[in-house]
């Protein structure tokens, strides 16, 4: 039996590889040097497994057919063969060592978070990501922007259904960015296949990872650790841009954040707070308390016509700032700034027929937070 096996293998290889890539069955090659290394390592080990599989199952099926009972084959009855046993122990050991060498080399690169040009803190929260550019005074929340109407089937699905956010993580290309990753509540996992990063974010721990992106673009991912009812609704979007573009984005962001901080001291009108509050509510609160404040019992109480909340302004403000211990309501004192907090409390006290007419000034909220 003379199969042109080399030739056959090459053809199968070429066809199945490009096919799997085109169909999205295989892992992506990605856009960093490291993601390429990981992809190549994956393919190397995959083909080692394929060759072993072909040899083992080839030998098995050949023997099954060639020495079948119908042809009068007689079984050999010897008990042991030390040479063969040593061989089939030694060969796998050598193969495993052969795989361990490139795998270890790649792992070492993955763990080398030294000499980063930029540090970004990634914080998992139920159910959004928060990004803090360390040393740059820039921090923001990244919420899924897919409308609930699409999720509930009342509208057609958009182009990036469940994979779009209001504010993506913006990163520069060609610079080493170190991620410091943690979570506020439960374990989440920050996963972007194109960047070859999938790292658990664990409350009380800081995990490290890094990327150095080669190509500008938008890269999408998801939370990869089951983290509660809205686990499927906390996508990751990374916007990688040219270095100069990134620098001006960062400067702009800083400026905007400073403007926002100054907004704390001025007197706000009801209409401005309502408009701002509605967008905060949609991004942050509506996933639990629902779009019209109707709530979802038992965990998430209604806010519309919630009499205790309407009657007790101080308690309402305290719950939003400090959360409710032992319940699903988290503290928003560090997730939202005073303007956003004041706006969302004003909004919930005046929307859906609550109509208290209360105007919460950001300065008051800042005072409460400082206490």
């Amino acid at each position: 039996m003379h199969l042109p096996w080399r030739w056959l293998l090459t053809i199968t290889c070429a066809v199945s590889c490009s096919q799997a890539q085109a169909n999205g069955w295989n892992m992506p090659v990605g856009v960093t040097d490291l993601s390429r290394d990981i992809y190549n390592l994956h393919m190397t080990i995959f083909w080692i497994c394929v060759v072993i599989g072909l040899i083992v199952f080839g030998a098995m099926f050949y023997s099954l057919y060639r020495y079948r009972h119908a042809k009068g084959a007689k079984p050999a009855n010897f008990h042991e063969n030390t040479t063969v046993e040593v061989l089939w122990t030694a060969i796998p050991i050598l193969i495993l060592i052969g795989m361990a060498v490139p795998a270890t080399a790649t792992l070492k690169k993955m763990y080398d978070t030294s000499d980063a040009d930029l540090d970004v803190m990634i914080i998992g929260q139920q159910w959004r990501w928060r990004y803090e550019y360390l040393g740059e005074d820039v921090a923001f929340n990244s919420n899924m922007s897919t409308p609930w109407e699409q999720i509930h089937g009342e509208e057609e699905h958009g182009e990036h259904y469940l994979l779009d956010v209001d504010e993506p993580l913006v990163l520069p290309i060609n610079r080493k960015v170190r991620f410091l990753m943690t979570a506020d509540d439960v374990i989440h996992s920050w996963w972007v296949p194109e960047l070859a990063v999938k790292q658990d974010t664990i409350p009380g721990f800081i995990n490290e990872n890094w990327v150095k992106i080669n190509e500008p673009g938008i890269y999408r991912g998801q939370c990869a650790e089951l983290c509660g009812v809205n686990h499927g609704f906390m996508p990751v979007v990374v916007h990688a841009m040219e270095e100069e573009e990134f620098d001006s984005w960062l400067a702009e962001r800083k400026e905007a954040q400073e403007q926002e901080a100054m907004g704390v001291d001025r007197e706000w009108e009801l209409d401005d707070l309502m408009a701002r509050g509605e967008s905060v509510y949609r991004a942050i609160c509506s996933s639990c308390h629902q779009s019209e404040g109707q709530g979802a019992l038992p965990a998430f109480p209604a806010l519309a016509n919630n009499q205790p909340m309407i009657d007790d302004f101080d308690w309402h403000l305290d719950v939003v700032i400090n959360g409710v211990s032992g319940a699903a309501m988290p503290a928003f004192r560090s997730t939202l700034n005073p303007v956003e907090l004041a706006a969302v409390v004003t909004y919930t006290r005046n929307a859906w027929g609550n109509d208290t007419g209360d105007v919460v000034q950001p300065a008051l909220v800042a005072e409460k937070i400082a206490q």
Partner: protein
Amino acid sequence: MWSVVKSVLAALIGVQSNVKRQQDFSSGKPLIFIVTAIVITLVFVLILVGVALVAAR
């Protein structure tokens, strides 16, 4: 002694001939095998530590 080491090494990879096993069970003392096995395991661990140190450089 060499035959004890060989038997322990054979046990380490899980392959031993029947003839050799009969020999060990009829003539050897258990304590010698146990001590040799502990020493060889320690050597194996040290080799792994060495490899890890070299790899981590």
